[in-house]
């Protein structure tokens, strides 16, 4: 049975490939690294080698490093289960040379099938082909001929590799072992006038509200721009802070605050300090969320709720459809469905005082922000292209 429910290690190991893939699909897991590619599809056809991408690349990020530091046992259990379910011959944790010490605990658990490999510190955008090249003997072909005579760029599966983001794998653990669907995103908040933080935030939360919680005086910060991403790859989330809003996406890896008029790349040399408090959860701490049912690569899920309905946290609000790529969608906040328009489910929670909620979340709740490429694997890069 492919239900989302708690399972111990043996029960997870007993899952068939088909069942595990369906759980991952129902749980709504998409690539957290920035691609937004539906994770279930990566595992539908088992391949010999799983490479876990722990090479957090954008300058200033801490999310993946903290996820690994705080969830060692979960990752090891998951790897153990995945060896059985998907019959992986090799599971590799790929980390930067400079992070050797940070991942020493993982190295201690290397057993041949699971290993830790170190790749050059050269910034490489988490690009999968480059990671395969640096961590294995294989080379993903530049281009591959399709049966219909067209050509497409090569991908890791062409050489028997699945590359998956660290946070996506933690989300798989949560689904397979805890029966928890995807409702949150881990990301770093950093940049001008804000202390570096790593938060676990409900998907669809207001960017302005999160920055307010992080200590920014949002209403009086019109001189700041907020990027969803890092110095190199990003979308502009809010061009002028205090005017308009955006919401946290399934592949938001950072809210990076820069001075208005400057380019993200000008901050490429930025150094940040790992937040001592580790990852701080904002679950239940935000006033509302806008949860997209699809977008980008994802065919919208069929809504299971209507305007005015009350939903619980982690209640299913969207059923995946059979056309194209589609995943289950779950409430990242308990509260009332305040609107359901353009494939976005807005939930008003009221976790913070009403006047504060109105001040900070109004643009978002009023549908003032549009979904920005949710689930589009290559559009992320397009954002920084647009800045040229």
């Amino acid at each position, binding site marked *: 049975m492919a239900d989302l429910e708690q399972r111990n290690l043996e029960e997870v190991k007993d899952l068939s490939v088909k069942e595990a893939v369906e759980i991952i699909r129902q749980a709504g897991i998409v690539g957290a690294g920035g691609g937004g590619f539906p994770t279930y599809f990566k595992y539908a056809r088992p391949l010999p080698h799983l490479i876990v991408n722990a090479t957090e690349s954008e300058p200033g990020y801490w999310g993946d490093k903290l996820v690994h530091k705080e969830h060692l046992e979960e990752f090891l259990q998951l790897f153990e289960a995945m060896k059985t379910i998907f019959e992986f011959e090799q599971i590799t944790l790929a980390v930067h040379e400079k992070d050797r010490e940070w991942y020493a605990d993982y190295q201690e658990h290397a057993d041949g099938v699971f290993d830790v490999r170190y790749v050059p510190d*050269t*910034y*490489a*955008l988490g*690009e999968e*082909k*480059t990671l395969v*090249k640096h961590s294995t003997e294989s*080379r993903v072909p*530049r*281009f591959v001929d399709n049966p219909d005579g067209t*050509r497409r*760029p090569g991908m890791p599966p062409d050489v028997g590799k699945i590359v998956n983001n660290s946070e996506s794998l933690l989300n798989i653990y949560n689904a397979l072992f805890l029966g928890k669907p995807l409702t949150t995103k881990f990301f770093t908040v950093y940049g001008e006038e804000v202390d570096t933080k790593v938060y676990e935030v409900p998907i669809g939360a207001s960017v302005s509200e999160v920055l307010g919680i992080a200590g920014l005086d949002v209403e009086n910060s019109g001189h700041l721009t907020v990027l969803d991403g890092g110095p*190199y*790859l990003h979308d502009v989330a809010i061009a002028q802070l205090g005017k308009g809003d955006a919401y946290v996406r399934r592949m938001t890896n950072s809210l990076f605050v820069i001075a208005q008029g400057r380019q993200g*790349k000008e901050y490429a040399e930025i150094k940040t300090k790992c937040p001592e408090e580790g990852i701080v959860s904002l679950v239940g701490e935000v006033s509302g969320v806008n949860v997209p049912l699809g977008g980008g690569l994802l065919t919208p899920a069929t809504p299971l709720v209507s305007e005015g309905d009350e939903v619980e946290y982690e209640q299913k609000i969207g059923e995946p459809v059979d056309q194209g790529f589609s995943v289950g969608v779950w409430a990242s906040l308990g509260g009332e469905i305040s609107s359901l328009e353009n494939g976005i489910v807005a939930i008003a929670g009221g976790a913070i005082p009403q006047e504060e909620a109105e001040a900070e979340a109004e643009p978002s709740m009023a549908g003032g922000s549009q979904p920005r490429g949710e689930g589009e694997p290559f559009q992320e*890069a397009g954002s*920084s*292209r647009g800045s*040229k």
Partner: protein
Amino acid sequence: MAYVITETCIGTKNTACVTACPVDCIYDAGEHFIINPAECIDCSMCMPECPVEAIYPGDEVPEYLQEYATKAAEFDYSGIAPGVEIN
């Protein structure tokens, strides 16, 4: 190991690679674009963008196109700015 732009760029100069490059390391070398190996971060973003498949990883450049790797290594990038603007 930087990426290398080769022969088929000549007469094409599509510019998609320039737009894709996150670190602005692609320059206009006249008849074709050229990647500065000192600045390339080996991310491969440019490679699938090229409509004429002119771009190779540095260690996969075919023998008959090696001159482009040599040219990229020896090219004088001082005094020109990256991108599609005419320098």
